[in-house]
């Protein structure tokens, strides 16, 4: 049952709002009144409701079941957070209102910032980055600014080969060359190889910890020391902070900057692709270079916003500047703080423990069935990594298994990432899954593994059979991209 496009059912003259049919006064438009048609169709309100309700029902979501996407941390999104973000006092205030009229909003930002600093053991935080990758950029710009301020603009950033693609992209965006560090056989950064690459040209390292193989970098303190000794800075990709929140403070490991994906660790909804929010915590060495704006509680108890004007005349003169208009993702801040306050210090520790426990449970229950290349490297953290070695010779791929999972009622796990493992399957259950749901998931994966071994090829090659659509032709989509509805297409 395909749902037509709004362009196929609506019309230019229909509308789902009741606005007066006022005639546009054109005398003050400088002769620029729009004459060309927009050709954007309208629908009445009931049609709109149905159109989007039906569309929604073609999606899979965390509210429907387990979403085992490794490295993506799809956890329960409490509706309290949604309710709080919609309080008028947060949702209905303008970013440029006089500060005296938004003291509660500024207070909220400070409270969240204080939690993030305490949980990471780091003295400063930049709240404005709009997403994880934006946070990476923020951290790397601070590193670059620090080197420039030292009069020593280095050229190279080291990135482990297991890193998220955003890491090298970000380093490049800041004008750095990227040098890759190999992994050891047990799935961690090769400390000796790293040391061999350090030198006066190295601005720093971008490292993910826990890493994308789901392992804690045991040598983290030594890595940081070595980088610092070589005059570099350590950027930590905090995508996996949810595995250690409340258990370890990144500041205690020697990290200089780390972004926090509020949706991964603090449950702001993923929303099918944003909006995100990626605050960045900084060590004291990088704090002076953090971006504008800041919010501070002044000695008189008032909250104040420090923007370009105040920075120029004050203590933030070394800030590398502004990354976004206004002050960041307020709506996400409210949700994250609601989540943090709900858990408290004890609950957040439990979050990490349960996330790690659930992932290890999956790893150990499935290591005899699938191939777990790093099963001997110690406990995993929040995610369990498998490779496709177990199905060699079956003629089937990781992709086929993933698509067959759809027919079993699950969203697939992360596939083909990290790159250090062939046909990777990265499974992250998160802490918001019950044991019964994990057992059911394990049961299904065992069944699929047995089916692979039994040669039930068609069940996999043709999958999914029970989704709203069968496999889609991505090649055709890319060869001659059709990205918008053409004006001349029939209704």
């Amino acid at each position: 049952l395909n749902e037509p496009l709004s362009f196929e059912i609506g019309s230019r003259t229909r509308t789902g709002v009741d606005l007066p049919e006022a005639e546009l006064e054109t005398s003050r438009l400088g002769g620029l009144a729009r004459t060309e048609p927009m050709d954007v169709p309208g629908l009445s309100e009931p049609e709109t409701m149905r159109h989007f309700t039906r569309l929604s029902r073609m999606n899979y979501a965390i509210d429907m079941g387990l979403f085992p996407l490794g490295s993506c941390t799809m956890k329960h999104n409490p509706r309290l957070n949604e309710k709080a973000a919609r309080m008028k006092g947060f949702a209905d205030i303008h970013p440029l209102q006089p500060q005296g009229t938004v003291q509660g909003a500024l207070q909220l930002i400070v409270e969240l910032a204080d939690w993030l600093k305490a949980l990471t053991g780091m003295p400063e935080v930049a709240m404005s980055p709009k997403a994880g990758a934006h946070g990476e950029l923020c951290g790397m710009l601070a590193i670059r600014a620090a080197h420039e301020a030292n009069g020593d603009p280095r050229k190279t950033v080291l990135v482990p080969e297991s890193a998220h693609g955003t890491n090298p992209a970000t380093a490049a965006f800041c004008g750095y060359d990227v040098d890759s560090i190999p992994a050891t056989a047990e799935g961690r950064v090769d400390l000796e190889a790293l040391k061999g690459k350090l030198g006066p040209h190295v601005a720093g390292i971008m490292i993910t910890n826990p890493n994308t193989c789901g392992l804690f970098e045991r040598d983290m303190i030594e890595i940081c020391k070595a980088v610092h000794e070589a005059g570099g800075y350590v950027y930590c990709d905090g995508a996996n902070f949810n595995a250690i929140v409340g258990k370890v403070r990144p500041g205690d490991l020697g990290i200089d900057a780390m972004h926090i994906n509020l949706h991964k660790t603090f449950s702001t909804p993923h929303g099918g692709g944003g909006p995100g929010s990626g605050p960045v915590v900084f060590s004291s060495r990088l704090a002076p270079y953090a971006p504008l704006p800041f919010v501070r509680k002044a000695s008189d108890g008032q909250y104040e916003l420090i923007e370009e004007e105040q920075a120029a005349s004050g203590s933030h003169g070394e800030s590398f500047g502004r990354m976004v208009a206004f002050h960041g993702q307020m709506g996400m801040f409210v949700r994250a703080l609601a989540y943090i306050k709900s858990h408290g210090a004890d609950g957040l520790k439990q979050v990490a423990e349960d996330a790690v426990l659930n992932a290890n449970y999956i790893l150990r229950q499935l290591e005899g069935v699938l191939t777990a290349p790093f099963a001997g490297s110690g406990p995993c953290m929040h995610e369990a990594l498998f490779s496709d070695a177990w199905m060699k010779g079956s003629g089937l791929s990781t992709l086929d298994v993933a698509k067959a999972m759809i027919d079993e009622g699950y969203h697939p796990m992360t596939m083909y990432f990290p790159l250090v493992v062939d046909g990777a399957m990265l499974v992250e259950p998160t802490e918001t899954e019950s044991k019964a749901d994990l057992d059911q998931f394990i049961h299904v994966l065992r069944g699929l593994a047995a089916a692979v071994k039994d040669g039930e090829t068609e069940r996999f090659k043709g999958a999914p059979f029970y989704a709203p659509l069968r496999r889609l032709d991505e090649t055709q989509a890319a060869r001659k991209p059709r990205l918008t509805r053409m004006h001349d297409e029939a209704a």
Partner: protein
Amino acid sequence: MRYLPLTDTDRRTMLESMGAADIDDLFRDVPAAARLDGPIGDLPAHASEMAVERDLARMARRNKTASDTPFFLGCGAYKHHVPATVDYIIQRGEFLTSYTPYQPEIAQGTLQYLFEFQSQVARLTGMEVANASMYDGSTSCVEAIFMARRVTRRKKAVLSGGLHPHYVSVAKTLTHFTDDELDVMAPKVLSGAPGDDLDDLLARVDDETSCVVVQNPNLFGHIADLSALAERCHEKGALLIAVVTEVVSLGAIKSPGEMGADIVVGEGQSIGGGLNFGGPYLGLFACNQKHVRQMPGRLCGETVDAEGRRGYVLTLSTREQHIRREKATSNICTNSGLMALAFTVHMTLLGEEGLRRLAAVNHNRAVEVADRLAAIDGVTVLNDAFFNEFTVQLEGESRSHLRQMAEAGVLGGVSLGRLYPDDGAIERCAVVAVTETQTDEDIGALIEAYEGVAA
């Protein structure tokens, strides 16, 4: 803890099943020196939903909201009425709690609305294609500058004086360590056409220019015909980047595409989005088909499934970081999904007819307010062409006047002294935005407030 389904019995059973003595056994790879003993001290423990809600509500009440007060602020963020249907749809769990649609078979809901969104944005801006949205207007803007560099292989961007100063700051920050060159023009307090000096701008376009960035309506609310500038850019092989921060204006004025822009970026918050103290917002990004492979951000495209049925997928991801790593067009790996959905739903409710009416109400009321303000002694309205906001110049520094109004309960505009602190002429200015949301009483209160400070 209400969000954690494991019971203590579950935890024990699971630990036993893997031969672990206790949970810390699983954290043994963490260096002992960095392990925390227990919950971090000083931080409070978990709290009930009621307690958290009450705590946040207390902070919320300390803010003066736009609905509860006569409110006339704009400058890149606008108060419009958002239909209740929009918020219902974006709260449906199937949209709210889904992931990036990498598995198109079970994400057609997200993919199809993205396709509709891209189509709507392209048509409103007068371009051929649009992406699936970006963080916000300011980041779209700097991404457009980078894209122009990739397209033209030139490095000098000219930024007009009417461009939102935050957008200018962001561009400066992100080009600071690359070898891009920015030619940033100062805003002009010109009577009639405040903000940009288009003639000056024209003169700066040369064979080295990768792009010209011009906002329309500009920060001062002024609207201008960009056609001559577009022509000049094209003569010189540069791209014209048009920035739109009030997307409702496209219901009343010529689209940037019609005036010759090559890239249109903007802030889409006005449609479907609330003020939210500045975020999350919605970055719009549109261009023509020929440049699509240099475009940053996520794109959704039409295709067919194994049975030939129409469907949608993310496409052209070879431009993106998860494939191209350090050679990607951008490091961005998300969009502003829910905000794009809100835009799509609201825009579907409006349709062309509704957007035209909405724009007419905004403009007509703004004209009325401008005329009433202009009639006050000591208040000068600078613009002769504007959409729903315009600049007033007072006889003294505007910031203290506006604070004074705020204390009396009227949020009477954005004082430009906050955005341009060092410019004497500008410090006397404020930008007043008028939308469909102000009542006649609100307008009366505004007039009275200006009469009060001008007197």
